[in-house]
């Protein structure tokens, strides 16, 4: 008979460390269905039949966030055999708040008091047995980091789970509340199983609408319960939900009074001293800039880029590709199959693998920032700047990394807790020009604007403006409506991060990317290879020789859809196909032009084809082309990481569709309005461009429906 144990606890309580210590490498990382929140499961070491489920880190079961909702639904619906509730021994008061709620679920529970090493070092004492008695649960004092007492915890939790019994919570509220709860249980809950009655009673007392709906109480019964609640609120001169919250904390204070000897108050901990400098009003921003510079410089510029280049050029370009091509030729493999394997699959897989070194380095850094406690300070420092655009302060890191490569940048969005903020970051990050877009920028700048630096500057400005404008526009759409998750964030104590944790997390993230992304990229690579290397020569469908791309399927597609890009000023198949080829990787745009203009290989900035470009484009249409390439759908590797992070085909299509329509609209406006200003000729397209501009401005400046609603709510709340 298999046993399921859920691991629950506050964020920063050491839950991840404990989970790693309990399961070792026997982990499966996935997502909770339909959302972007990570779900981890694993087998308990030494107990092959015990499955551990790592619940998201939460402060409460009250469903004010997605994570709380997931955890609550899991605990109520999947009926795990036991809960391991990990609490931070250095911060028992707030950690035990969740414990009082978990206890009401009726599921057998073990309390793991973590960071006992730190507790002892600080001179505080905790009487574990007395704490256990107060809650009616077994207590194990552990250090997840040093892996002390982990086996004992596993043993006791398994024992508790094997009983397959129920648990009745011991803690009591004060007389008036208990009276109301008892009455609610009596009139509305007597048909529910005994061990669940208390949970429901408390929720009904708090006027929880979800539970009211779940129990489908009659209006009469509801009115009856309402009377009890009102009476109690009168007696306590407070609202029912705050009575419950306050009494939970009162109970905890009372317990802690008996079971702990606290360290002297007023003394500054090492963490406080660090924070005095790190988030100091004057020093915070310079320190932040230095930290970000180091992260960027090492992961994007030096180690990351160097290793990426090595994987791309050396490992694939000079070692693997020639070796495999040679071997395939020696074996007499058919030409098309060679092409599929080398130009299609290997090139496609190579494009994924070349990101890995950068990704590994970046995730090591992110792990360091997260586990040390600095990441929360990043949100604290940057919140004011980002929240206006529907982003989190933590969005800064994805945006920064995005200037190197969007793939790891989008994955870095995983450190953002709030799902709205995370989605918004994933959608907007690839507007920031990545390294692969630089050759395109250089090509256009060189051919049309004398290679001036302001073109590149303009490209970054455009990217940042697109992020800001998108944030403001999208925030007001129904997709990002609904009550905003509040920014009430714990600033955890600074800690030395455990290397094991950082490595395990990095491994999880990178390997899950490779697994999920590579399948999409593989498929896409095969399709792209097919449409580029096959086509019609003199009416015959065949595989093409190099340099025949103008006869390929992709050229046919380009020809067929070229009219769509007429209003952008470059409605001819060559630029259209070049822009399409950017889906493989953005720098391919340059080499595609090289092939079209008969140069084969071109330098990175495409110097050879500048004069051909000048014949094909005007400076204005070249600008519109550049804008489209910069803003529209990113490369396939990025799309697949968006898919991975969104965990939803609908959201992925929305993101790609949104980017492409923004790219198209902005390019159209620039070309048409530019033409109008230059020539003075007003056409139907000028009108459309003006209408688009008007629409964009309206979307940007219209009042947010949400802001109006919540203001009313807030006022009502204050009056009440």
């Amino acid at each position, binding site marked *: 008979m298999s046993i399921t144990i859920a691991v629950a606890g506050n964020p920063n309580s050491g839950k991840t460390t404990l989970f790693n210590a309990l399961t070792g490498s026997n982990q499966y990382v996935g997502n909770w269905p339909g959302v972007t929140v990570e779900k981890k499961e694993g087998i308990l070491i030494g107990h092959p039949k015990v499955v551990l489920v790592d619940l998201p880190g939460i402060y409460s079961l009250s469903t004010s966030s997605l994570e709380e909702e997931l955890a609550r639904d899991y605990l109520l619906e999947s009926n795990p055999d036991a809960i391991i509730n990990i609490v931070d021994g250095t911060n028992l*008061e707030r950690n035990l708040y969740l414990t009082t709620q978990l206890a009401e679920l009726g599921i057998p529970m073990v309390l793991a008091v973590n960071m006992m090493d730190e507790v002892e070092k600080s001179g505080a004492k905790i009487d574990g047995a007395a704490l256990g008695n107060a809650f009616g649960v077994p207590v194990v004092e552990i250090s997840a980091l040093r892996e002390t007492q982990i086996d004992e915890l596993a043993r006791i939790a398994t024992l508790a789970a094997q009983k397959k019994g129920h648990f009745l919570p011991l803690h009591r509220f004060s007389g008036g509340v208990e009276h109301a709860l008892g009455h609610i249980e009596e009139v509305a809950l007597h048909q529910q199983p005994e061990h669940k009655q208390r949970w429901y009673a408390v929720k009904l007392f708090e006027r929880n609408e979800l539970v009211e709906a779940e129990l489908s109480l009659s209006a009469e019964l509801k009115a009856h319960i309402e009377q009890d609640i009102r009476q109690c609120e009168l007696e306590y001169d407070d609202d029912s939900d705050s009575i419950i919250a306050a009494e939970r904390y009162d109970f905890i204070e009372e317990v802690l009074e008996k079971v702990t000897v606290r360290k002297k108050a007023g003394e500054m901990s090492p963490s406080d001293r660090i924070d005095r400098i790190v988030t100091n009003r004057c020093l915070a921003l310079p320190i932040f800039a230095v930290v970000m510079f180091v992260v960027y410089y090492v992961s994007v510029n030096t180690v990351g880029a160097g290793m990426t280049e090595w994987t791309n050029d050396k490992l694939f370009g000079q070692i693997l590709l020639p070796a495999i091509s040679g071997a395939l030729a020696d074996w007499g493999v058919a030409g098309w199959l060679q092409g599929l394997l080398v130009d299609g699959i290997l090139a496609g897989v190579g494009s994924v693998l070349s990101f890995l070194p950068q990704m590994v380095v970046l995730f090591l850094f992110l792990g360091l920032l997260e586990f040390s406690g600095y990441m929360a300070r990043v949100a604290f*420092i940057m919140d004011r700047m980002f929240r206006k655009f529907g982003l989190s302060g933590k969005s800064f890191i994805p945006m920064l990394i995005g200037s190197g490569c969007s793939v790891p940048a989008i994955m870095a969005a995983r450190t953002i807790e709030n799902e709205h903020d995370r989605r918004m970051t994933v959608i907007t990050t690839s507007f920031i020009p990545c390294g692969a877009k630089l050759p395109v920028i250089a090509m256009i700048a060189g051919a049309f604007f004398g290679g001036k630096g302001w073109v590149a500057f303009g490209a970054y400005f455009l990217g940042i403006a697109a992020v800001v404008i998108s944030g403001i526009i999208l925030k007001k759409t129904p997709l990002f409506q609904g009550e905003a998750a509040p920014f009430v964030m714990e600033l955890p104590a600074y800690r030395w991060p455990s290397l094991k944790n950082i490595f395990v997390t990095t491994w999880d993230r990178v390997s899950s990317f490779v697994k999920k992304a590579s399948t999409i990229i593989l498929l896409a690579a095969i399709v792209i290879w097919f449409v580029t290397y096959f086509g019609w020569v003199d009416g015959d469908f065949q595989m093409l020789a190099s340099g025949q791309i103008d006869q390929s399927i992709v050229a046919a597609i380009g020809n067929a859809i070229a009219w769509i890009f007429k209003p952008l000023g470059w409605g001819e198949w060559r630029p259209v196909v070049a822009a399409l080829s950017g889906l493989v990787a953005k720098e391919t745009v340059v080499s595609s032009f090289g092939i079209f203009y008969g140069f084969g290989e071109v330098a990175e900035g495409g110097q050879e084809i500048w004069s051909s470009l000048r014949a094909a484009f005007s400076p204005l249409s070249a600008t519109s082309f550049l804008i489209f390439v910069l803003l529209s759908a990113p490369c396939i590797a990025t799309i697949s990481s968006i898919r991975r992070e969104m965990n939803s085909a609908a959201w992925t299509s929305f993101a790609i569709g949104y980017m492409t329509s923004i790219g198209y609209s902005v390019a159209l406006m620039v070309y048409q309005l530019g033409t109008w200003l230059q020539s003075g000729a007003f056409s139907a397209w000028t009108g459309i461009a003006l209408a688009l501009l008007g629409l964009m401005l309206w979307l940007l400046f219209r009042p947010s429906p949400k802001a109006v609603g919540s203001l009313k709510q807030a006022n009502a709340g204050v009056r009440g």
Partner: protein
Amino acid sequence: MKTLRDVRIGESARVVKVHGQGNIRRRVMDMGITKNVEIFVRKVAPLGDPIEVNLRGYELSLRKDDAEIIEVS
């Protein structure tokens, strides 16, 4: 009505009542801001918002706008 927003940096206040509605009110109470708890306002972020407070032995940050729903004395 004096709220947490009005408390100066380096000063403490006692919570009288949590106003507001919905998620924010819920979250504020879940994080331990309940009747009679003592809150110490430690600092403000370099860009002027949010603020950092200390209560129940830990550090919490919240936006000034949200601090307005917390009535203190």
